Each structure stands twice: as structure tokens, then as C-alpha cells.
């Protein structure tokens, strides 16, 4: 709080409309920006098939949605993806930059996870349901934009989560 410069007074100040307008505009644009990415779909309408391409109508619900990304991160941990794609892995396997070799949009990422890629990436479509691959693709898509410290912070919070076969009980 302002202190010191004290018991001041009066003098009529003109209503600074421009400043008020700018502030309001900023606040509302920030608000509008927040909505879609904040949506949380938890009912039974999850996708059970692969994306059909870049115009798949289901894409917007997954592309930048924070909830789906977060769920994807959870499964990324569960299925042990971090064994090859941890934050400390080599670029580009750690997904810290956006130069994905097979494309960085969800349909391509989905394909990489589901069908595997040459050079050691196995196919997961028989092991992981479609909905979770969607979510993991969304997560991977978000990683280059994620602050590295924040990614590490999230990983640490999930340290107790089962990581594939290495999980051995609660964090002590």
C-alpha cells in the first residue's frame, strides 16, 4: 500500500476512460481465451477410434485442452513412456522442441503412438485404448510449449504413480 505521502487531497481528476477501457478489454480477452482450453469432459463421449485427419471434428476438444493434456500426462507416466521420452532424454526424444519428425499435430502424434515408428517406437494400439492415445497425443503436443521446470514439477508430483512395471508402492 502507498504509505508516506500522506493526507493528500482533492483536485478533480477527469475520468480516465481510456485506461478503464483498456483494463476491461484486457480482462475480458484473457477470460475468453481461457474458456475452451478449460473445458472438462468427463462423461462417456470419449473417442473410440483414431483421428481421421486434420479436419476430424473431435480435434478441437483435444488439441489445446488442459484437462485432456493432463490426463495424457498421467497415462504417459503410467505406461512408462518416460523410459525413452523423459525430460532428460536427448532431443528430440524428450519433446522439448516442436520439430517432431513425423508431424506435431494430433493425427500424426496419434499415429506414432498407435502404430509405432521405425527406430524403436513400438505400436501401442493393441495395448492402449483410443481415448488414452488421444489424450497422450494432446499431452505430447503440449510439451514443447511447456516450461521445462514446470514439466519437471509435474513429473515429481506424479512420482508415486505407477510407472509401468517399476512401481513399488506409495512414496515414503
Amino acid at each position, binding site marked *: 500500500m502507498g504509505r508516506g505521502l500522506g493526507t493528500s487531497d482533492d483536485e478533480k481528476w477527469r475520468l480516465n476512460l481510456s485506461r478503464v477501457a483498456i483494463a476491461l478489454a484486457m480482462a475480458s480477452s484473457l477470460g475468453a481465451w481461457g474458456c475452451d482450453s478449460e473445458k472438462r469432459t468427463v462423461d462417456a463421449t470419449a473417442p473410440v477410434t483414431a483421428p481421421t485427419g486434420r479436419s476430424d471434428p473431435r480435434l478441437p476438444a483435444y488439441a489445446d485442452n488442459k484437462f485432456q493434456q493432463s490426463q495424457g500426462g498421467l497415462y504417459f507416466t503410467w505406461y512408462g513412456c518416460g523410459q525413452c521420452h523423459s525430460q532428460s532424454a536427448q532431443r528430440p526424444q524428450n519433446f522439448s522442441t516442436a520439430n517432431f519428425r513425423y508431424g506435431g499435430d494430433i493425427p500424426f502424434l496419434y499415429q506414432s503412438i498407435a502404430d509405432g515408428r521405425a527406430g524403436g517406437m513400438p505400436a501401442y494400439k493393441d495395448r492402449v485404448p483410443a481415448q488414452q492415445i488421444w489424450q497422450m497425443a494432446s499431452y505430447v503436443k503440449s510439451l514443447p510449449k511447456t516450461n521445462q521446470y514446470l514439466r519437471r514439477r509435474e513429473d515429481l508430483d506424479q512420482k508415486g504413480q505407477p510407472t509401468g*512395471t517399476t512401481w513399488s508402492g506409495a*512414496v515414503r
Partner: protein
Amino acid sequence: MSPAQSALFPAAEQAATQFDVLTLMLWICGVMYLVVLLFVALAIWRGARARAAADSPVTEAADPTLSRALAIWSCVVVLGLTALVVGSFFADRSLAAARDRETLVIRATGQQWWWRFAYRTPGGAWVETANELHLPAGRTARVEVGSTDVIHSFWAPPLAGKMDVIPGHANVLDLTPQRIGWYRGTCGEFCGLQHAHMAFDVRVESPADFDRWLAAQATPAAPQSGDPSVARGQVVVTQGQCAECHTIRGTAAAGKAGPDLTHIGSRRSIAAGTLPMSRGGLEGWIEQPAALKPGTNMPAVSLSPSDADAASAYLLSLK
């Protein structure tokens, strides 16, 4: 009403101690409350009678009679509170005393939104199960609670009060059940979307029954059913997407993320107390988990209706 999850029908030493404290509280507080009500009624009655007099307000605050009454009242309050503090203290002491009598170690791990239970067998190995706790009557079990994600709270009201399940903290709760029967526990701390469906069944049984049960749980899965679709179900479950998260000992399914299903058919309920165990319930849960438990981490697996039916037949047969 059902006493299965009620603190008013204690079935273990710990809950009984806590119930005794409640009884003491109700007596002391109840009497005090009646005294207050009586005072208020008297004040209203006396005040209403005095209303006729219309002289000026009383501006002298002091009143020797009231001062004496206040002193007495304060003493009564202090005595009552002392009794309650002492009662609590002894209850706490008796809860702590059970620590010396532990004969069985159980690990309860809270996860969004189910419970992983692991038993230490006499041989020193760990046997894992989920959402159903079996306890031998008359023996004290040491329940070590832990969390893999957020804060939960382990709470089986007929057995004992809550123990929070906190990541980074190792908490221990003692249970000394006394009455044989089925009870129910649940998560006591808000833990996200499906906090409402994070229950577990508790079976208190005789030590002999318990030992038999534990020995059975330690064995690998063995389908017990003449249903022909069981064989198909085994293939669907153990070689499909289910196996990535679930373990069925004795088969290829070895996932660690979800509940152990080795003896799921022997359990009382599905999905952490969401549904009673039945073939139809299993099938519904496999096909549409998010419809029954919105937000669950169990995904919808795309199976043909016949495969889903076979899978549930197989799971139900895992007694």
C-alpha cells in the same frame, strides 16, 4: 438405516473407544444445553412479566447476585470441559496402546479413485488385492496407509476413525475388529471427481477363515466356471488392452496401474463400491466406465458385445 458404514455401531475396539467419547460428550453437552435452554426460557418469562414497568433503562451494569452466578457458571463450564479433555486424553491413550499388539501388516494405498491393499503373508511375501479388506476378528492389524497421487483418507467408521493418506507421509492406523460381519469404508478426504465412489468393503471374519482367505488370495488365478465363454474371455482380458493396467497373476496380464484382478470374482463390489458384483455389472463397467463413474481413469475399451460378455464371464469366474 444401514449400520455397515456407521460410527454408531462400532465393530472394533477403536471405534468403540471413540463411541464412548461420543457418549460422554452427548451427556455433558446435552445437560449443559438443557440448562441454557432453561435459562433462556426463564429470562423470556421474567422479562415479559417485567415489561409493564415503564421507567427509564437500567444503566448500572453491576449486580452482585449475577456476579456470583457467573462465577458458579464458569466453574461448571470448566469442570465440564475438564471432564471432556480427560476423557479424550484417555481415549487417545487407549488408541495408542494397540500399537503394541500388532500381529498383521496391511498396506493400504489410496489412488484416484480406488484402494490397493497388500497383505504381508507369514512367509514375508506381499499379496495384493483391491477395494476389499479382510480382517481377522480379535487380532490387531497394522494398516500402513500411503498415497500415490493426492491426499485421501482411510475411513471405515465401524472400525475406527480416519487416517489421512498423504503423499510423502507414512501414516499408520491400528484396527482391532471384534464383531464378525461385512462393513464398508470409504475415502474421507475430498480427492477429486470421483471422491464419492472410492469405497471399499470390509470383511471381519474368524482368524481361521481369514487365514484360508489369505492363502487363497496368494494363489494364482484359476477360473472356476463351466461357462464356455470363459476361455474366450481369458484371451480378451489377458492379451488385450486390459492387461496394460491390470495384473492377473498366473496370466500374461501384469499391468500395475489399475487394481489387481487375480481374484476379482470373489469380491463383493465393482469399481470401488460403485456396483454390486455381477456379470451384468462387470459388463456395463467394461463397456461404459465413464457413464457409471464420470472422470474415472478406467478407459472405455472397444470390445464387441460378445467379447465384453465373455470378459465379464471370465472375470466373474476368478474366485
